[in-house]
């Protein structure tokens, strides 16, 4: 079954983030906020997890937002409209629990993690919740889906590390201010591990701020996405083991042992670098060949 790329566009101004729309009618029919897919570009490719950032059940499409961080994400982003992706499996993971909460929900997206926030904010707002959104990025050029997030937020706050847009600082700054002023029912944080760790530390009730239930979305390394390999496992602070693919990917941020997870995330660094170098070399050779042919 081929999975065709129907649309592709660059997001932000960093040249590293792309939005792609894929034709996957069956997945589109079943997808919900919180789900992800595993995608393999070609025969030699690896299976990588990407969140379903939007879906259109009628058109039979899903939207992915991908940041180039290594070989596989680069390979995907080098594909163009009309190209086929070899394998797309999903929808995987648990959909988020949708209900009407008493107080507002704070949705925090960091970097490319902003995209997966969209369906969550949308479905929760459709259920009658008040959504306060905080978007964080290193700089203005890396900020994505601002307008789209506006459409599903009652209030939108932006932070950048360098102050090139919105508040200068990190997402936990406005979060603290909000928590001091108002009662919050739920916090959802999706972004880099370090960001999610600090959000969880802010809301765990161990400091001066009240405890607020917090969901984080774990982006561990995965293979099958069905609980079969244990590659995506994470440790809770109490030492229990859970699997991100079937117990998550959205999990209670207060139980996650982030320090261990950060160390696990780096376990293939050497191989990832080799893989990237080989691919870059291949791309250069191909460019050279094209030039010579012309």
């Amino acid at each position, binding site marked *: *079954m081929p999975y065709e790329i129907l649309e592709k566009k660059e997001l932000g101004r960093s040249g590293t983030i792309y939005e792609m729309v894929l034709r996957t009618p*069956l*997945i589109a029919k*079943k997808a919900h906020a919180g789900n992800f897919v595993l995608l*393999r570009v070609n025969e*030699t*490719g*690896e*299976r990588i997890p990407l969140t379903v950032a939007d879906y259109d059940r009628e058109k039979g499409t899903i939207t992915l937002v991908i940041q180039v961080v290594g*070989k*596989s994400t680069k*390979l995907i982003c080098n594909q163009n409209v009309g190209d086929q992706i*070899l*394998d*797309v*499996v*999903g*929808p*995987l993971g648990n959909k988020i629990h949708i209900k009407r909460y008493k107080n507002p929900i704070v949705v925090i997206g960091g970097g490319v993690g902003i995209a997966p926030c969209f369906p969550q904010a949308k479905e929760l707002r459709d259920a009658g919740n008040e959504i306060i959104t905080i978007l964080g990025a290193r700089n203005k050029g890396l900020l994505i889906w601002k307008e789209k997030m506006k459409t599903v937020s009652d209030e939108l706050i932006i932070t950048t590390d360098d102050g090139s847009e919105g508040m200068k600082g990190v997402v936990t700054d406005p979060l603290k201010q909000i928590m001091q002023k108002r009662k919050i029912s739920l916090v959802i944080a999706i972004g880099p591990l370090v960001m999610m760790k600090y959000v969880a530390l802010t809301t765990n009730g161990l400091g001066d701020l009240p405890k607020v239930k917090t969901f984080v979305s774990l982006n561990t390394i995965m*293979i*099958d996405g*069905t*609980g*079969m*390999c*244990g*590659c995506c*496992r*994470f*440790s809770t602070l109490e*030492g229990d*083991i859970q699997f991100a693919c*079937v117990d998550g990917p959205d999990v209670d941020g207060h139980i996650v*042992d982030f320090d*261990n997870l950060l*160390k*696990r995330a780096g*376990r*293939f660094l050497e*191989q*990832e670098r*080799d*893989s990237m170098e*080989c691919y870059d070399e291949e791309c250069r050779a191909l460019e050279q060949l094209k030039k010579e042919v012309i």
Partner: protein
Amino acid sequence: MKKKIEEDSKSSNSLSKRSKSKLTNSEELHRIEMKQQDPKIRITNFEEVSLGLTEEMVELETQRCLQCGKPLCISGCPVNIKIPQFINLLKEKNFIEALYKIKADNLLPAICGRVCPQETQCEQACILNRQGEPIAIGYLERFIADWERKNNLKECPECAAPKGIKVAIIGAGPAGLTCAGELAMNGYDVTIFEAFHAGGGVLIYGIPEFRLPKDIIKREIETLEMLNVKMEYNSIIGKILTIEDLRDMGFKAIFIGVGAGLPILLKIPGLSLNSVLSANEFLTRSNLMKAFRFPKYDTPVKIGKIVTVIGGGNTALDSARTALRLGAEKVIIVYRRSEAEMPARKEEYHHALEEGIEFQFLTNPVRFIGDDNDNVSQMEVIKMKLGEPDESGRRRPVRIEGSEYLIDTDTIIIGIGTRANPILTKSIPELKLNKWGYIETDENGQTNIEGIFAGGDIVTGSATVITAMGAGKKAAHGIVKYLQEKYLEKK
């Protein structure tokens, strides 16, 4: 030896007069040994270890068969292949008929010839086993399947006329593939839904290339496609489609063969250290994702200098031997029982020994110890002794207090078994499961829900390829009976 057999009245009863007279003759010949790649060379490649039999070897081996009147081997085979008949055809060099004879009972001989535990099945039952030299039935089975492949034949049995009734198979492991084949031959319109991007189940993601070349599985699936079986990959039932969806799509019966794929992890301290991984992860990376060809293939696998594998089954042995081929300097297998209780195929154990794998029996892990970067560096183990038999009939290992010691290691692979994957069964709440999450069926493979059948590891727990195939076949017969009664006889 000969005397012993004659004394054994039961066994001589089962010998025909003809075979008795041949007994002396067959004793002069010895069981054939298969050629293998030299252990020193084979640990540097992923090519097949055993090289198969030559025609001359087959000639010698088939002469040894007594052609018993009441053959015990057939009942030793979970799918009752007509073993003496196919051996006789082989002896007459009628290879094509020999192939048909096997395929009538077993569509996947190239696979079974390689991975079945013959020593506990047909070859154990073989009358010549009493002299310790049973006919090499597995080798002969493999020979004929390889002959088919070498001659580029793809023999598949005749199919009955199409009945226009759709059946869905969930899972393309040996159980699902066999069930699909049987149903297709009976004229049913079969579609297999498989979670992965390739079929074969454990055969493709678990068992390594050097034991079962993946090309063989591909061909066996092509044979099914010749029978008009449709393959839908990347389809996790319970996620992308539910049982209700399948019924809405017009499938009149459903077979569940989703295996028991969930790894059991040792709940001991240090489990979340880096380079502690399940055999499933390690083998899936290497086999299905072809990490042994990284960076040509994108999936990486990391291998340390000293790899320790925990477990005593095929999974543990496959992991250990794969680690060796990926460049580990030393590979140790730690198993809590003794050599005699090891559930692995005997031949694989011998191969592992030849390859230099170190075995530490009656040894059980206590904890994994890591360095400052959370990379594993040591494993603490404790010595065990065998106590009273447990429910499996094997003697239960008990700890010898105070016998703890440390093993230096930088990669730990846990291969102590698997359990049921709940993804599908959770999506059918009314399906009856036992307390371990395996599906309950009757003797026809029928579950408690009408039209839904099941078989293989998801019913029995981890077993063998051939038992899964046997279950697939049995369920296919159950499905045929069900569909005939419900849809065909009424017409």
